[in-house]
């Protein structure tokens, strides 16, 4: 009985702590015209190995909401509140100013403090002091970015988040191999959690961010695995004849929706992860695949070609009426809900172009957000403001992000190989 066969992976080598080179470079290709002018003055670094203010500057710049002041243009570089002269920042047309400094507390620990000022009101909006180990300084910088972002936009920041994606090296050659990687939201700290010469697909984060479900063909046929990120422990949860694909966690983390074709045509099933019971949710003779849960767990959307072409359908998670949701466009697939449940994002095909589109659940209107020819695998940021997706140009796969109104575009340039199937972690 190989179902739920447990594979334990033991620690074979020591921890490398400061593996923080970038796998991805993120370029902002389009921002909003109302971007807020803000200056992040270089922090006094106390010899720290990480340039915190540069990371905060880069985070705020690539999110598209801010117009960053270049360092050479700054009238001064204060590190303390006492050294701030608001008049000169007003004269430089800056709305906000961030200052900060690090102190070496010994033993590889740093004390980091920063303050955010409203330049025109000549007052402080935020001020924090935090301790951080040298190894954790990047995380501390992203946390500072999150605090500033939330204070100024009212939305939760996503700079401390992580993304998962699949990279291919030696694409198309006999040496082709796939890696499932997890990196910080800015592409730093890439770590391979699974690697295979056979395809790896469809990474899906558990709602608590501690586990990853994915599809691996490592045994020459498709199987779904659940891997615990902390321990590396891995469980094979589905290996039936035919397709074992498209895993999607229920919002409460207790069940996985899956595509299985063991009974003939691909259908959506729900696997209870604790009881291991399997429930068949859809029963059409057509292709049913790519399930995704509503945030309240009461329903799932999925792709079906039962009407002749792939379109998005919705079904109650307890089973019941399967209703078609999309009627515009000849191809709509791989839908998922926004965190507030009000929108669906999907791959929208018309003719030879496959683009990312968002659908308003209240009136079913579809808004195409991207302009590529082969855009796929859209994934919402946890705060619902951006959508990460895979794109292609000149045969190279890369990741992009777009705001839900389509106004902010980012391109994430991968340094080597192809990158696809991004998934924004919780």
């Amino acid at each position: 009985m190989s179902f739920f066969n447990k594979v334990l992976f033991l620690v074979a080598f020591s921890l490398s702590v400061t593996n923080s080179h970038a796998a991805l470079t993120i370029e902002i290709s389009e921002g909003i015209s109302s971007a807020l002018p803000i200056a992040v003055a270089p922090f006094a670094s106390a010899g720290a190995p990480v340039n915190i203010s540069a990371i905060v500057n880069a985070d705020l710049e690539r999110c598209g909401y801010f117009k960053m002041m270049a360092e050479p243009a700054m009238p001064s570089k204060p590190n303390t509140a006492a050294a701030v002269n608001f008049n000169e920042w007003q004269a430089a047309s800056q709305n906000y100013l961030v200052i900060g400094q690090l102190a070496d507390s010994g033993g590889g620990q740093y004390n980091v403090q920063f303050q955010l000022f409203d330049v025109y009101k000549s007052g402080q909006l935020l001020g924090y002091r935090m301790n951080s180990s040298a190894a954790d300084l990047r995380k501390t910088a992203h946390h500072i970015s999150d605090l500033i972002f939330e204070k100024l936009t009212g939305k939760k920041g996503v700079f401390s988040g992580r993304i998962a994606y699949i990279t291919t090296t030696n694409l198309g050659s006999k040496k082709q191999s796939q890696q499932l990687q997890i990196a910080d939201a800015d592409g730093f700290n890439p770590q391979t959690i699974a690697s295979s010469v056979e395809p790896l697909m469809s990474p899906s984060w558990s709602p608590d961010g501690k586990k990853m479900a994915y599809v691996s063909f490592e045994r020459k046929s498709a199987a779904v695995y659940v891997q615990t990120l902390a321990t590396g422990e891995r469980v094979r949860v589905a290996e039936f004849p035919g397709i074992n694909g498209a895993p999607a966690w229920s919002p409460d983390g207790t069940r996985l929706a899956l595509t299985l074709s063991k009974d003939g045509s691909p259908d959506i099933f729900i696997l209870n992860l604790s009881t291991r019971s399997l429930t068949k949710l859809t029963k059409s003779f057509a292709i049913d695949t790519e399930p995704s849960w509503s945030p309240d767990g009461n329903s799932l959307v999925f792709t079906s070609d039962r009407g002749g072409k792939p379109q998005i359908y919705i079904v109650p998670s307890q089973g019941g009426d399967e209703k078609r949701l999309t009627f515009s466009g000849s191809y709509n697939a791989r839908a998922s809900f926004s965190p507030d449940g009000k929108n669906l994002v999907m791959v929208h095909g018309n003719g030879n172009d496959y683009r990312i589109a968002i659908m308003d659940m209240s009136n079913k209107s579809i808004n195409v957000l991207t302009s590529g020819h082969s855009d796929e695998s859209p994934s919402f940021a946890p705060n619902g403001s951006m959508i990460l997706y895979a794109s292609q140009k000149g045969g190279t796969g890369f990741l992009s992000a777009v705001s839900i109104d389509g106004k902010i575009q980012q391109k994430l340039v991968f340094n080597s190989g192809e990158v696809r199937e991004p998934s924004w972690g919780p």
Partner: protein
Amino acid sequence: MKLNKTIIVLAISAVFLSACSDTDETDAGLTDGSLNANSGINDASTTGLNKGYGMNDSAMNGNGDYASTLGPEFNDPNNPLSKRTIYFMLDSSEVMPDFVTVISAHSQYLIANPSQHITLEGNADERGSREYNIALGELRAKSVASMMKARGVSEGQLNVVSYGEEKPAVLGNNEAAWEKNRRVEVAYQPR
């Protein structure tokens, strides 16, 4: 290694007292909680994340072109057994008439050699979503399998797998590449 982070709201001079006390409370509470959570996640995942899986062992290597070792008929361009790829139209799993001869030839070989097994590997071009393409590749492989069964091949000789768009035969973002990737490969398994 517990990376303990503490947060203290800066008590800044009277100049900035306009950010009054309830703001400070909110900020301190929020930040404290989320930072503690952060350091917990960081400890756990960094340790685990460095232990990835390597699955590049010999079981994963392809079996090469085993069929070419079965006999001269598999290498004779005039013999349909030398053709082991069946191509499809866009978003279709219907076998085109051109390939019926090829499928019939492999069926006859399998009937004559009942201990021979094959895997029908379904594939799709890169357009559209990846999991939908897995389903499409499987439909294509199953179309070929049902034609072989109709010709008398035993079900036990046939294995079906779909790789969707994950194993392109040809790289490229044009119809010339796409039409070569919408295919089923007849892979003879070593006996």
